[in-house]
């Protein structure tokens, strides 16, 4: 056993104060990433600040947004009627996270703050253009999802900042899809893709977002794929061309799970599948 101090503050203010006061203090949320790191001695924090008592577990539908507290558990995201209706991409993505045990305890804030380059939720948040609310010793601020993820396990949060909530714009007039492939079901994926496709009355793509996970240090938006779609009819050929354009811009690395070449190939296949599904959904959902 390596000893550490343990605190469980009741307010965000107290939690921030503890983070600010102590070097090497770490927040504990669902513990699904932190506890394994402690077990393997990859992290040896002197102080653990358990935030599970903070009032950050709500899912609230506001005007044009769904506001998700940082302590919303993965399984709540998966099951919440508001999430399923207004941001179905999140429900689809989170179902791929780990297994039922992990989803029972793991939290949205923990997953985003941990910023594993292969994690699903960061990819979905970038695709949905979510905004992250953070509170630190210097006050509170908002960070767009696209600027939050910097590198593997590295985010825009300062050491004394807590991610408190995420505002996700509701998905209107667009179809979304999340697709991934892992060596085993429930593992972190080799590649994941989130697609958001809006189709106008003329049947052309009004807007498209294609975001990859697992290919680099942070979620990667694919401008070539998006450009290839915007303003065009989303025919199977057009979608295939967009997926191919995406692949050509990718340079994934090789690791013990797969070669870079295989990852790039998967990125194209999965992008095609995600775009097809998102487009079909865009064409079939009623425009809200």
């Amino acid at each position: 056993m390596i000893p550490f101090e343990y605190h469980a503050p009741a307010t965000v203010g107290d939690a921030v104060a503890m983070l600010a006061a102590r070097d090497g203090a770490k927040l504990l949320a669902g513990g699904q990433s932190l506890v394994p790191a402690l077990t393997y001695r990859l992290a040896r924090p002197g102080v653990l600040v358990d935030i599970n008592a903070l009032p950050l577990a709500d899912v609230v539908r506001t005007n044009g947004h769904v506001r998700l507290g940082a302590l919303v558990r993965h399984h709540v995201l998966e099951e919440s009627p508001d999430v399923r209706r207004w941001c179905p991409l999140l429900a689809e993505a989170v179902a791929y996270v780990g297994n039922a045990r992990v989803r029972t305890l793991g939290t949205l804030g923990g997953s985003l703050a941990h910023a594993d380059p292969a994690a699903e939720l960061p990819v979905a948040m970038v695709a949905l253009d979510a905004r992250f609310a953070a509170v630190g010793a210097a006050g509170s601020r908002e960070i767009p999802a696209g600027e939050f993820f910097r590198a593997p396990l590295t985010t825009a949060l300062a050491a004394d900042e807590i991610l408190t909530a995420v505002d996700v714009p509701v998905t209107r007039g667009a179809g979304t899809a999340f697709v991934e492939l892992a060596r085993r079901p429930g593992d972190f994926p080799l590649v994941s893709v989130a697609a958001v496709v809006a189709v106008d009355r003329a049947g052309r793509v009004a807007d498209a977002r294609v975001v990859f996970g697992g290919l680099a240090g942070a979620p990667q938006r694919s401008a070539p794929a998006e450009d290839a779609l915007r303003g065009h009819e989303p025919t199977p050929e057009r979608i295939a061309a967009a997926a191919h354009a995406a692949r050509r811009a990718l340079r994934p690395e090789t690791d013990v799970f797969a070669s870079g070449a295989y990852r790039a190939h998967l990125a194209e296949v999965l992008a095609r599948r995600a775009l097809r599904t998102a487009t079909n959904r865009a064409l079939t959902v009623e425009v809200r």
Partner: protein
Amino acid sequence: MSGAPDRPDLIGQRIPRHDARDKVTATIAYAADWAMPGMLHAVVVRSPYPSAQIRRLDAARASAMPGVVAILTAKDVPHNTLATDVPGQTTTVGPLRAHLHVLAEDRVRYQGEPVALVAAETLEQARAAAEAVEVDYEPLPGVFDTATALAPGAPRVHEAGNLLAEWRIARGDVAAALAGAAVVIDGEYETSFVDSGYIEPEAGVAWIDGDGVVTIRLATQVIEHYRDVAEVLGVPQNRVRVIGTYVGGGFGGKEDVTVEVYLGLLAWKTRRPVKMVWTRQESLLSRAKRHPYRLRYRTGASRSGEIVAQQVEIVGDSGAYAYLSALVLLYSTVTAAGPYRVPNVAVHARVAYTNNPPTSAMRGFGAMQVVFGYESQMDRVGAALGLDPVHVREVNALRRGDTLPVGQVIETHVALPVLARRAWDSLGEPTPPRAPHVRVGRGLACNLQPYGRIVWLHDWSSAWVGFEMDGSLVVRCGAPDVGGGQASSLCQIAAGVLGVPLARVSVHISDSALTPLSGTTTASRQLYMSGNATLKAARELREQVLGVAASMLGVAAIELDLVEGEVRARDGRTLALKDVLAGCARASVPRSRLAVYHAPAGEPIGFMKVGGPDMAPHTPQTLAHGPAEPGRGSGKVFPDYTFGAHAAEVEVDTETGVVRILKYVAAHDVGRAINPTSVEGQIQGGVVQGLGYGLLEEVLLDEGVNQTTSFASYLIPAAGDVPDVQPIVCESGEGLGPYGARGIGEPPIGPPAAAIANAIAAATGARLARLPMTGERVLRALGALDGKDG
């Protein structure tokens, strides 16, 4: 014979295992659960280099750290040599003298090789001190694949050279037969480097007991390693005792010594209880693994599908030490042509030292890797001739009286054609592909797996069965239970013979001081060997007890039966078992019996030549040349074989290469299913492990440095990867075990990889020749991905 023949009422019944509930409710004290007052915690200091010279080793600073009680290096070990020839063996094994240093002296040959031992008051203190042991290594060139190792001028892993062992079989005229064959199929295959991957890492606690005996309680498949501990300590063998716990998975990984010698040394030096539990990373890093093989097959067949010739080349990687490599290779050599009658066979098998992690026993023991070779070939022969997969195997299947290439005559029934047909037909209606990019196909693979030890090892097992005065029954047998239900089956056999309800039977196993030795739980031998010993003891005890009852009732013993805790005479009279047992005491007839079962023994058909440290230079050894010559041994290598046939239906996503198993059927002739539930468990477990071998598992090494030392990177099948495995249990009654049982522990792991490869070929036309068959490799085989194989 006295007494009516026993009625094995309990044989073949699905009896819940007595240990199942305890395991599920976590009331079994596994090796790592043990704790004792004043207990120290120990860790191993391991080499970070796969090949290096130790220039200096200084433990002074570490010794002075808080809580540290002992640090041992090679010079502190009384006899620093550990024999690893054949665990638990009591006869000599010819010139095979595989051995290694308990702790490295001046040279390390693989990453993770033990260099020093540290014992401290707490685990954290022991770990901190282990990190503080100063070792100056001078890295040396190493060899990391067998082709390099066997090339002239390669760096030598051991002085005598890198070729560790070599076997040959030459039977008939292969060249002529190939020349006359209607089809000749060439194939090269590569099998992967895999780990046992059991859930319970190596663990144990040792202490010096009140009587001065060094006592070691650990998870092991071989309690007879007490002898090895004694040799290292330099004490008489009767001063060391090993208590085996229920084992959380062995698969061969707990056949060679694990923690017992380290624990024995530390308890001996410190005179205090010492605990050692390897971490998962340590276990994956340093425990002996399965040999990766390169296989080259050339198969000739006649137009009607008869295999006329099989030419096989095998090269295996032994890693840095010999362990059981020479014998693993022998299993491969003997089974290389599969469960088929092949008149002309040439096998050339070699195993080489490298600076990779050592390889040794693992479920299937060399008879597994070759299945991927011979069953891929069989499928290709069938495809080339337009024969259906079942038919081409039926045509070639061994039959009783046939001779294996090594010269061994098959003496028992071979159910292979029935097994293949039933497995194949049980797949039922074909599943339609669920999308245009998905292809569905079916594959079949058969195998043969020896059970019981090599006949020239003169294997034996003993068991003791006795009644308490109240009529409850005790079985004592040294057999370790590795989760296969070994202990439970012994109870079932004894209870059946002696007419005692199972609830009234207690079994004591796996204690070298208190239970009669019964040999290793390896080689699918424990039910066969200890089942026979227990059956023999129980039957002899039955005779004794009924003899006394006969004189009490004044009838012939043949008139009597022993059922449900009483003796029943044909004339309707009964005697309570308790009263008969009291009668035994009065008549000075023992209420217990010790029996020894000796397996059929045989003479070596050749003798083994093994290279390696301080051993004679290697010369190739020919196992069989033409028909066995009279007086030169019978060609018999193993007591008997278990046969199986597996059928799989898979879907292949042609865009991602991902293979999903839709249906899986595994049929084996188990001779007699003592407990069908346990048999099915063995089949299902073996298949799952075999699927891991086929699709997922791979120890990845970068110049001998292990890249897969956690279960996040070493991928074993998890619930989501496992299909519903349908077992088919056939009972020919022809095995050598109790009531005609055959060994079933190892056989089911053999066919899965080949069955899936054949199914992929049927679905897509692509032939996978390298394991594991990852999505990436499937895609390359489909020609849909360029670049180097990752």
